[in-house]
């Protein structure tokens, strides 16, 4: 079998090997049969000779003494063997003394060498010798085993060989089939591997293409951003610059001076709102969440909205009886509401109804939520617009009329507050924007007193101002001095720490983002070294504060107004006493 495997291992040699093996088997079979036949003949010849010798020995005396009767008796003893065809016992002169012949084939009447040919029979002639003298001959012819029996035996051998050959053929064919299947499998595996490699290349190319597409989209967005921002800022800067120029004119009337100053303040506020929106979009604006009642907030805003939307738009409110409280940044929420309302107004150029509603809902596994919905009766949005509504810088308004950041701010605020926003709209059907915000378990705190009317004069103190930017630092120093405080200026966290340890201060007012020691680090160190010394932080934006908060310290966002600063300082000084 191992031979067969070795042969089969050689791919093309295998069928030839099978044929050779079958041939060998058949030749071996024929060889065995022939050898068997020859051996059988030999054995029969030997048997015949032995028979003849036995007869020769037993008829010696009878032959010697011409006792034909005794000779015949000896012959008859042999003839019981059915294979014996003919027996002849001859005297020295060759005359037949006794004999026997089956089926009419009698022994020759006279004995003569060579032996007469007999059809298929095995013959043997043995001399009868007594004391060295030949006194006669015994002739014996015996039939071989009947042909049918021999053939039966050989057929069995032949069948065995045939079966062996068959087994070899079947094994060989099986082996071949297996090899063929293996080859096909290998080919398929190769094809699969090739396809896989091709797929990988395609995936790589696709990823590359997508990267390029994203890059292109980013560049496009950047273009829109710079365009929109530059436009808005230029407008605001024109107002600020113009007003400042007018203010510098000597002998300006008091009412004009106030009007130009107010114009600067308003333009600056709008610019601040714009940067606030940008930061909200970038999610870089730190939130100042507070617990509030949504219904109250809407009530408070109704007047503002009325003024903003104009007379042609009627505002209706559908407030839930028990709308829950939320914890969110009030300014951001107001901004969001205002952005949605402004969009609604723009969608209703001919006037319409704006409905603001609240409802308590349970949304999935997020628990109780407040749904704040704003519905207009305007033109609605088609599917394409709807799909891109939250996209930053996407706007349907004319250039200069909108930055494309309104709904982006709404989206950014909602995500940052753990809620979400939805828009339901169809062309001609109006639009409903729903803001979902998680309910807060805490009760609504009383609204902090807003400085509002102007700088409230609190107690004056000694303040350590930490600011790396020279202009902002000088400005803040002016503001704080104007508020009556004693100011010490430090330009880095390290310097501030050194001075705070060396001199007594009532409060520290520090920027957050500075090279070296940051405002947060400074606050942490001071909390250890000078516990009880209050620290007020200020920042345009800060990753750190957005991520981890200010550790409970008050934060003033840039740009800040005089009132905001005064209030914060007064608060900490009041707490300190």
């Amino acid at each position, binding site marked *: 079998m191992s031979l067969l495997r070795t042969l089969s291992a050689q791919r093309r040699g295998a069928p030839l090997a099978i044929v050779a093996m079958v041939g060998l088997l058949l030749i071996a079979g024929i060889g065995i049969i022939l050898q068997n036949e020859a051996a059988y003949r030999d054995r029969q010849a030997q048997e015949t000779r032995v028979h003849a010798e036995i007869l020769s*020995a*037993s008829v*010696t*005396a*009878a032959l*010697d*003494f*011409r*006792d034909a*009767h*005794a000779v015949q008796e000896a012959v008859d003893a042999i003839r019981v063997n059915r294979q014996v065809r003919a027996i002849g016992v001859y005297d020295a002169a060759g*005359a037949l003394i006794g004999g026997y012949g089956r089926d009419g084939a009698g022994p020759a009447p006279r004995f003569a060498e060579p032996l007469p040919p007999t059809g298929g029979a095995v013959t043997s002639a043995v001399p009868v010798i*007594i*004391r*060295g*003298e030949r006194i006669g001959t015994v002739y014996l012819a015996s039939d071989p085993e009947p042909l049918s029996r021999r053939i039966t035996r050989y057929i069995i051998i032949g069948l065995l060989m045939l079966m062996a050959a068959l087994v070899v053929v079947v094994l060989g064919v099986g082996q071949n089939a297996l090899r063929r299947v293996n080859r096909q499998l290998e080919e398929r595996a190769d094809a699969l591997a090739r396809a896989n490699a091709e797929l990988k290349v395609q995936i790589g190319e696709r990823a590359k293409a997508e990267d390029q597409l994203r890059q292109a989209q980013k560049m496009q967005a950047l273009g829109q951003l710079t365009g929109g921002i530059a436009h808005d800022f230029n407008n605001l800067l024109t107002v600020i610059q113009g007003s400042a120029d007018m203010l510098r004119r000597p002998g300006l009337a008091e009412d004009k001076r106030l009007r130009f100053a107010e114009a600067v303040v308003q333009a600056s506020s709008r610019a601040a709102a714009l940067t606030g929106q940008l930061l909200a979009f970038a999610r870089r604006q730190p939130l100042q969440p507070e617990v509030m009642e949504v219904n109250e907030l809407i009530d408070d805003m109704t007047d503002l909205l009325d003024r903003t939307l104009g007379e042609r738009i009627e505002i209706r409110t559908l407030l839930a009886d028990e709308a829950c409280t939320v914890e969110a940044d009030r300014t951001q929420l107001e901004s969001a509401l205002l952005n949605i309302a402004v969009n609604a107004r723009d969608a209703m150029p001919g006037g319409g109804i704006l409905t603001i509603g609240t409802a308590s809902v349970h949304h999935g596994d997020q628990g109780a939520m407040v749904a704040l919905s704003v519905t207009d009766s305007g033109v609605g949005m088609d599917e394409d617009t709807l799909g891109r509504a939250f996209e930053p810088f996407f706007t349907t308004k004319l250039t200069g009329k909108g930055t494309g950041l309104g709904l982006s701010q709404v989206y950014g605020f909602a995500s940052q507050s753990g809620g979400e926003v939805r828009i339901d709209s169809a062309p001609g059907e109006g639009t409903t924007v729903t803001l979902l915000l998680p309910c807060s378990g805490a009760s609504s705190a009383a609204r902090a007193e807003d400085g509002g009317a102007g700088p409230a004069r609190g107690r004056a103190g000694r303040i350590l101002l930490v600011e790396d930017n020279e202009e902002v630092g000088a400005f803040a120093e002016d503001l704080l001095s104007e508020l009556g405080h004693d100011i010490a200026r430090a330009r880095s966290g390290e310097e501030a720490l050194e001075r705070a340890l060396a001199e007594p201060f009532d409060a520290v007012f520090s920027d957050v983002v500075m090279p070296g020691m940051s405002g947060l680090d400074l606050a942490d160190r001071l909390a250890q070294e000078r516990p009880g010394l209050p620290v007020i932080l200020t920042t345009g934006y800060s990753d750190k504060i957005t991520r981890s908060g200010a550790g409970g310290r008050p934060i003033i966002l840039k740009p800040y107004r005089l009132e905001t600063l005064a209030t914060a300082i007064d608060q900490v000084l009041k707490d300190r006493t």
Partner: protein
Amino acid sequence: MRAAGRLGAALALGLALALALAIGPARAQPSEDAVKAAFLPRFARYVTWPPASVPVPAAPFHLCVVGHDPFGGALDRAAGSELIDGHRVAVRRMATASQSAGCHVAFVRGAQPQDTARLLAALRQRPILTITDARAGPQRGIIHFAVVGGRVRFFIDDAAAAERGLSISSRLLAIAAGVRQRRG
């Protein structure tokens, strides 16, 4: 030419047939004495003598005819063609048993049955295969010829042979008309 050839062949065949018929009966029924003469030298083949009596190489076996000789030249011819283990067979004729020294086989026939008995008695002490004939009287040697069923047969007294130190082959005993078995 052809007819003549065929006639010749037929004639030759006829002649051969006639010859065969003439010889056949002659061979089939030889005279009783001729048969016995042919048998006599052959007995020696089936008998083993004591070592002292076996002839030295080149010496013959001695076949003695003691008393009356009924065979004449036939016995000489039969013995002349015989060869036993390379030994020739020599025929000696004698009137009395006193000359029987050196005999291996002795055909004993007195003029009268009593003579035969006397001769046998004289030979009894020697290792000699004695042979007698029923025609000459009832006295028996070791081998005794008799015609049984029209054929020349013989009886064997194996006991007597044993007494004389002779051993007779079972082959011979097998074709004997009767055997007196040796004791033990």
